[in-house]
């Protein structure tokens, strides 16, 4: 317990899953998350756990439907084009109230885009890319340690709400190596999965279970009608809002707040530190849950007259949530993918240049 290792973010996914008592991994190769799938292929069978390489990402997500329905903790990891393929499955998992964890190591899109880092999937992850009314909690780590810890958090939240949870990484976090403390987080005990399929005679009361994603076609455990299910789904998503989580830097005395997640939160933190040394009243709001989004803190700060600089490695996606939260009370500036330190797929949003931008605003 508590052993320290030095690993890539993509491998921290595996160590975190292990500490979350994940039982099964289903995945398909895709860059830049291959170290993750390879880690599970190497480590899981040794520990008597299941690893299956699927025939596609639609296969992976449908396998999660089966394994989660069978009542075990299961997960997959992928990158952006694979995430695209999983959208139908995300919707079905949520409709069937099935818990599982999906790790998305983002690369640049759209389409096949690049195989390098980016944050261009914010909208499809946070707003839901699949059909129908559904939501899923999105956790956004900014370090290898957080990837490890958030994996455990993700499995707990998935089981708590019976809903898929996304851990949103990116090509930078996947590839950097950092020390990770393998601490196992304790969570409150969750109820036995009496809804899972395991064979009628293996059920506690020998009554069959029927898991499906067609609440409007087939009666559910919650009632006969589609509306019964909609009421349930609404309550589920409303209660998930209480899981909102964020971190701040210099919350009390800043005139300008950077808002950033993932690797950009690391660059932004450094930019804030540099700005403070120059006496600039700059702070950071880092959403840890991207859904639910930390609207309240942004709204409060906006009403006090603080402005925002959204730093995200895309053409402008989270900025719309920041603007909505600010409700027109303050200015929301943007620093995005077109301001990378190199104008190519290897370019990043760097602290020095973010600082230059801060100075232009203040």
């Amino acid at each position, binding site marked *: 317990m508590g052993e320290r290792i030095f690993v890539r973010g993509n491998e921290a996914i595996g160590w975190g899953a292990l500490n979350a008592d994940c039982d*099964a991994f289903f995945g398909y190769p895709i860059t830049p998350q291959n170290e993750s799938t390879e880690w599970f292929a190497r480590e899981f069978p040794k520990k008597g756990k299941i690893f299956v390489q699927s*025939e596609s990402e*639609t296969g992976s997500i*449908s396998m999660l*439907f089966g394994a989660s329905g*069978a009542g075990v903790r299961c997960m997959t990891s992928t990158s952006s084009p694979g995430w695209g393929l999983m959208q139908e499955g995300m919707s079905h998992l949520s409709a069937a109230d099935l818990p599982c964890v999906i790790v998305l190591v983002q690369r640049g899109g759209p389409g096949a885009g690049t195989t390098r880092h980016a944050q261009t999937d914010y909208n499809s992850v946070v707003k839901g890319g699949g059909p129908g009314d559904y939501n899923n909690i999105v956790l956004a780590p900014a370090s290898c340690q957080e990837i490890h810890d958030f994996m455990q958090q993700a499995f707990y939240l998935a089981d708590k709400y019976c809903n898929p949870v996304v851990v949103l990484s990116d090509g930078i976090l996947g590839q950097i190596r950092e020390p990770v403390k393998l601490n196992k987080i304790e969570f409150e005990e969750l109820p036995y999965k009496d809804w899972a399929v395991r*064979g*009628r005679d293996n059920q506690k009361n020998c009554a069959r279970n*029927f898991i499906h994603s067609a609440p409007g076609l087939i009666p559910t455990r919650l009632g006969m009608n589609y509306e019964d299910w909609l009421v349930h789904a609404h309550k589920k998503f409303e209660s998930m809002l209480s899981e909102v989580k964020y971190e701040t830097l210099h919350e009390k005395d800043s005139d300008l707040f950077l808002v950033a997640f993932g690797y950009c939160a690391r660059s932004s933190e450094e930019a804030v530190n540099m700005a403070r040394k120059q006496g600039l009243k700059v702070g950071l709001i880092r959403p840890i849950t991207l859904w639910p989004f930390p609207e309240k803190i942004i709204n409060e700060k906006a009403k006090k007259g603080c402005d925002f600089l959204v730093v995200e490695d895309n053409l402008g996606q989270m900025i719309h949530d920041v603007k909505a939260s600010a409700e027109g009370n303050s200015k929301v500036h943007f620093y995005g993918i077109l301001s990378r330190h190199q104008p190519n797929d290897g370019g990043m949003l760097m602290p020095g240049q973010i600082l230059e931008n801060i100075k232009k605003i203040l």
Partner: protein
Amino acid sequence: MSDRKKIFGTPDIILAPSFMACPGCQHPTIGRIAVEAMMELGIDGKTVAIMGVGCTGGLLGMTNIDVMLPAHGRGPDAASAIKRVRPDTIVWTLQGDGDSMAIGAGPFVGALNRGEKITIIMGNNTNYGTTGGQLSPTTMMNQTTTTSPNGRASENEGYPVHAAEMAATFKGCAYSARSALTSPAGYKKTKKYIKTAFQKQIDNVGLSFVEVISACPLNWRKPPVECLEWIDNVVLKELPVGEYKNVDRIE
């Protein structure tokens, strides 16, 4: 009444007196034969059955076994995962020809390629019944459907898929057979094939597959008896019945 013993009738685990299907449809028959086979082998209590999306799977919703209904075509994916995480269960899918040969062709081939220890039963009625009789991969040449109004033509729609023959080419396949329900002998053969398929899974050999040709009178625009004649004279000429693979061990 106590001196009376049930010697024939609907299996007790079927919870509804009749199934949602059009008059003359043979899909519920396939489901019932599969349920009977399961009960004769005494495996219903440890079974997880997967409903395909379409006309085929409906019966399972009314059967007293654990059931799962995944997205259209993804039966073999979900079945593979359940079998992997609960190897002591018997996992089988009941799918249609569109569900398993069109949208689910990838999952079907993937499961075969991995040699999953699952059973796939495919009811083949050569069209999409639920949505009103459109062309499917198994539609016969010249067969009229709502999306091949002039009959299936190779230039535009290609040729019918031979699922049982294809499954047999995979090394991970332990059993592959095709039957039809056009005669009492066909009913018996179908049950024998499905029982053998389940037995392959019980013995942990490999994937087992049974394709059953199934009449769809409403969408074929034919009375039920003519449907059976058409199966014998047209469908079975293209897709012959029989066992295409039957091995007890895969080296």
